[in-house]
């Protein structure tokens, strides 16, 4: 408004009254409406014409599979709002596209949550030797980007944290007192390592486990009250009935709100175009799980939905050489996880945040 007032007060403008856009009526609002309506209709007509032509062009190219797929993908609904037919259509479309892109027969599963199943996970923190085999099994299974050249091209969902082992030491008995006060307010013979979640992710010794280290793998905890779901502005991430928090990649806008909200550093953004070589691509995929992602969407662990919805253990459980990883149905009292909860010492990471993870750490 301020700019308009300024231009109307411009002496150059005022000295040119023969301008055809000058209002004919005394009522300025009507006048403006009249002239702009013509322009508006003209522009609107042009716009609709061009969009119709664009549509026509897209429709005419419908035998070009790529264009048709792009077209359909842009207009598909949020996965939770899709009807069964729309899901089947999306599945067929994705299978066709991925099979073409990766040069092998790719299946996109849309199996729903199975009734009577609430998935749970337990990890024996005392057994973990920090070999990172779970990390790489996850990458082999879940089609993450695995480039090497540019930062952000290599995506791993599991992080293994190396923490120093704390211990009580005789020579530290007098340490930890404030100096010069003369009053003893509490000492500390304990080496305060391993007390906080500070440690090394990039450790690379010749052999693990190291003598003075403890290892703590961290991935998505599949919270019962997930902060990431609360903050998602497009509601593309949500909790499935079997307890897994999933992402409809097509509706993700890459705003990274969920990454900020997650207290477990579990979510990753595809900053670059994902690097996924054809021969390494896993052709058995799930729509909400490991189907290839695009640039600018967030991804995270989903307990290998493409496997676990069909009763199979997640990939990380199967490769753990020490059997520290346990997976099962929390509603089945005979399952591994239920028995661990009944029998072992269990804790949840950052339990004070009330996120209620279904990922439990335990020790013998």
């Amino acid at each position, binding site marked *: 408004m301020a700019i308009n007032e300024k231009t109307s007060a411009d002496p150059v403008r005022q000295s040119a009254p023969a301008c055809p856009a000058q209002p004919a009526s005394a009522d300025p609002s009507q006048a403006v409406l009249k002239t702009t309506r013509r322009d508006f209709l003209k522009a609107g007509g042009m716009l609709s014409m061009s969009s119709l032509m664009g549509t026509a062009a897209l429709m005419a190219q419908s035998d070009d599979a790529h264009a048709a797929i792009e077209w359909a993908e842009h207009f598909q609904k949020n996965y939770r709002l899709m009807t069964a037919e729309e899901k089947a259509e999306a599945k067929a479309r994705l299978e066709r596209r991925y099979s073409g892109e990766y040069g*092998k027969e790719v299946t996109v599963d849309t199996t729903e949550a199975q009734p009577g199943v609430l998935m749970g996970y337990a990890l024996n923190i*005392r*057994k973990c*030797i*920090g*070999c*990172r*085999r779970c*990390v*790489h*099994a996850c990458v*082999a*299974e879940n089609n993450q980007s695995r480039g*090497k050249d540019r*930062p*952000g*091209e290599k995506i791993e969902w599991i*992080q293994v944290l190396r923490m*120093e082992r704390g211990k009580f030491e005789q020579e530290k008995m007098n*340490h930890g007192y404030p100096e010069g006060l003369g009053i003893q307010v509490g000492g*500390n013979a304990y*080496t*305060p*390592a391993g007390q*906080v979640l*500070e440690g*090394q*992710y*990039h*450790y*690379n*010794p010749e*052999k*693990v*486990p*190291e003598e003075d280290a403890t290892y703590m793998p961290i991935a998505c905890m599949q919270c019962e009250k997930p902060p990431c779901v609360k903050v998602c502005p497009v509601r593309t991430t949500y909790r499935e009935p079997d307890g897994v928090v999933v992402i409809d990649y097509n509706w993700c806008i890459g705003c990274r709100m969920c990454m900020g909200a997650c207290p477990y550093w579990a979510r990753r953004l595809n900053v670059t175009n994902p690097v996924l070589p054809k*021969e390494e691509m896993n052709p058995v995929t799930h729509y909400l799980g490991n189907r290839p992602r695009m640039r600018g969407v967030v991804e995270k662990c989903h307990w290998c939905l493409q496997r*676990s919805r069909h*009763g*199979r*253990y997640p*990939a990380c*459980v*199967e*490769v*753990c*050489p*020490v*059997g520290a990883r*346990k*997976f*099962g*149905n929390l509603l089945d009292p*005979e*399952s*591994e996880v239920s*028995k*661990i909860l009944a*029998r*072992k010492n269990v804790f949840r990471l950052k339990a004070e945040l009330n996120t209620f993870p279904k990922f439990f750490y335990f020790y013998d």
Partner: protein
Amino acid sequence: MKKIATFATVLAICGGGLYTVIAAENAAEQPATAAAPAEPLVCFESRKGASEVTQRDLKPGWPNVKCSPTTGAALWYGDPFDGTVPMGKMPGLENLPEGHALVKPRSEKLALMPLCGTSCHNGVGPQFTPPTLPKDKKPTPIPTMAGMVPDLANFQHGRDRIWCLDCHHATKRNMLVDNFGDPVSFDQPQLLCGKCHGDKLRDWRDGIHGKRIGEFASDGKKRWFTCTECHNPHNVQDGLRNKGFIQLQPEPSPQLPKGMADASHEKLHPIPQH
């Protein structure tokens, strides 16, 4: 004009760089494809020297196992039941449906097995009928035996409280022995180990201790990893660390954050050390 010139130079440099990269990749690929059919890829499963899998394609583009190029460990299972046989009779697992408990036979991997019980310890001879065994559980070291099984030179399991014939059958050396003196197959070491480690046997039976792969449902079809697939029975604790597991090479570390040459920042302790 100057701009175009710089742009062209940049393009030329990039193009040159790209060409060398592609050329290098091609060069790296060629020997790999040439060598692949020559010898099959074998990867170890839990620990080196125990069970192994040979990689093969179940169907095009779907191998039974993927091996780590760095460490040679099994990284991903396409078929968790590859090379397995039924576990056999196991007390406490009677309720499992038939054929749902599978193991990989250990005897295939034990190189000395065909010789044991036939060549040296064949169970006949003057001192075996009736068996006269030493009373002090401190056998005289036999160089031949120690040469074949290096772990025996510094035998750790039990810290001198147990000896060979507490686990190996006295007259049938290709078998182990259970609490009642009955022979136990090398494929079922849990029946032997549970003699002393009963708590671990109970946890193993419930799936809390050890490793199982396959279907996660409590009555699902699973391959169970037996004791000796993960633990070296002659040296379980491996000295260095009290975890019952031999040290191995880790898989590569994650990508460094943008602009960081190394991860030395991680080694600075955030809490001042006393």
